[in-house]
């Protein structure tokens, strides 16, 4: 029973971290209809930057903020200088450019920071929580609190602010939104800022949780998250979150309990294909 509970908690944490990465991807796909595979490298850079700033300042909050700011800039630069000019071309053109950026940035991380796996031992501000005999570690608590906070914040932005309205309008119909006075360029740029910042948070959380930061860490979520946004319903942020949690829990159980000898990426895609056969527009897709 104890093991089962532990697995659930780990699974939820994994789901939460997947959700943070996938959220950004879903939002960006929603407004720009581009598969921003390079998002996984923004996540990696976020982890490294967070680690670097933490070793510099000793303060995890400052490190997180600094990393978020840095990644936000990177995200906007990618959007302005690569994706935006390529919008009028068929979708595989920005997709290839995104994959090229992913590889280039991963390599850059390796060249700058070295290929070795670094540890991220941060003192976390959240205490461990004990319920009866059962202790939830400080790391887990942090992951839960941070993910939850981000989801709430994002939900508030999307539903209660003008920006959120603009983002939803642009993701439904960019031309229409523009005709109604929405500044689509700014909206898209802000979406990248938000998405990339969340990716930075995800990178830091993953780095702390698994105590590992390495150049190829982006390869783990890079393609799985594509499957996740399909399952969630293309462009549906809430669908992406739900799908992420399902995957997080499923993966943890399959690795922990059953000894299914399949690599995790393949699992995610098999699940995606099965779900698509049942619901072709994804779990929460509209079309």
């Amino acid at each position, binding site marked *: 029973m104890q093991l089962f509970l532990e697995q659930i908690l780990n699974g939820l944490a994994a789901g939460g971290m997947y959700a943070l990465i996938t959220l950004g991807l879903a939002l960006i796909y929603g407004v720009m209809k581009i598969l921003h595979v390079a998002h996984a490298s923004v996540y990696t850079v976020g982890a490294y930057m967070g680690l670097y700033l933490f070793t510099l300042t000793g303060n995890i909050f400052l490190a997180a903020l600094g990393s978020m700011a840095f990644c936000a800039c990177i995200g906007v630069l990618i959007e302005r200088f690569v994706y935006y000019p390529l919008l009028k071309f068929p979708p595989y053109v920005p997709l290839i450019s995104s994959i090229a950026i992913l590889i280039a940035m991963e390599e850059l991380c390796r060249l700058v920071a070295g290929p070795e796996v670094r540890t991220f031992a941060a003192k976390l501000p959240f205490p461990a929580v004990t319920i009866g005999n059962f202790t939830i570690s400080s790391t887990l608590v942090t992951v839960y609190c941070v993910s939850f906070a981000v989801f709430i914040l994002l939900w508030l932005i999307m539903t209660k602010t003008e920006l959120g309205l603009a983002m939803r309008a642009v993701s439904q119909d960019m031309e229409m939104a523009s005709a109604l006075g929405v500044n689509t360029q700014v909206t898209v740029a802000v979406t990248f800022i938000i998405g990339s910042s969340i990716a930075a948070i995800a990178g830091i959380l993953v780095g702390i949780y698994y105590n590992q930061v390495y150049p190829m860490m982006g390869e783990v979520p890079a393609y799985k998250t594509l*499957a996740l946004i*399909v399952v969630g319903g293309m462009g549906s942020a809430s669908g992406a979150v739900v799908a992420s949690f399902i995957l997080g829990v499923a993966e943890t159980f399959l690795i922990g309990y059953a000894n299914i000898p399949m690599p995790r990426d393949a699992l995610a895609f098999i699940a995606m294909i099965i779900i698509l056969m049942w619901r072709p527009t994804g779990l929460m897709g509209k079309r």
Partner: protein
Amino acid sequence: MSSYVINVATQIIIQAIAACGLNVIVGYAGQISLGHAAFVGIGAYSNAMLTTAAGLSFWQALPVSLVIVGIVGFLCGLPSLRVREDFLAITTIGINFIVVAVFQYTPALGGALGIGGIPRVRLFGEVLKGNGFFALCIVCLVIVMVICRFFTKSWSGLSCFAVREEETAASSMGVSPVRAKLTAFVLGTVMAGLSGALYAHYMRFINADSFSFTFSVTLLSIAVAGGLGTLWGPVVGAVVLGVLPEIFRPLVDYRMFLYAALLLMMIRFLPGGILGGSSVISHKKFKPKSAETLKEGRRS
């Protein structure tokens, strides 16, 4: 020619053959395929198994492998080609990951160790290696390009161009979009299978890693960089993207980074490819082809 040059050249030709197949799917029919490497792998594993476990010769195994790849391509294409474009990209990525996982985890296929000891190709009793094998690859490439040319001149090819340009209009003119896309898909994957079979007998050892999603991206980059929808595009792309890493080889550590950076620059500033429409390179050299590339339904 030095054996180093022949080696690089052979690999370039093998990739060009696979890229020609991808060009049929993406360039002619306008469908995204990000899992092409999976079909190269199926061709490779099929020929490898048939020539090692079943003791067939390369020539006996090849037609069987091509049929196998064609059938798998058909089965994969059938559901995938009905979905929307973005879904298709992700579905083909999924196919790649799943196929590679099957290669990796099926003990009968060698599991993680792959298949080794693949025999060389024999022609009239002579073993083909080095220049001989290179010549075989060239012949295969020529055959594939002739088939592509023939395809663009056929009604089947024209229907693919129509579907690529405007699927709804094409269907209102008697073209069944599913049939057109499937035809292109099967043709393209069979060409990938041929490339895979050649690869298996060239490397004489294969495992799942060679056919990963990364390779699919390379193939797509080759097709796009050369110019989608053109006849020579895949070859030009394979040469350019095959020679680049060799030029960067002395810069060992920076190799991947420079390759990715250059690919990014190429895609960003030459999205139509070297032979494609929005190219900076003047078309005067290719003038005789340009009327033809219009007929081949070049995308720009």
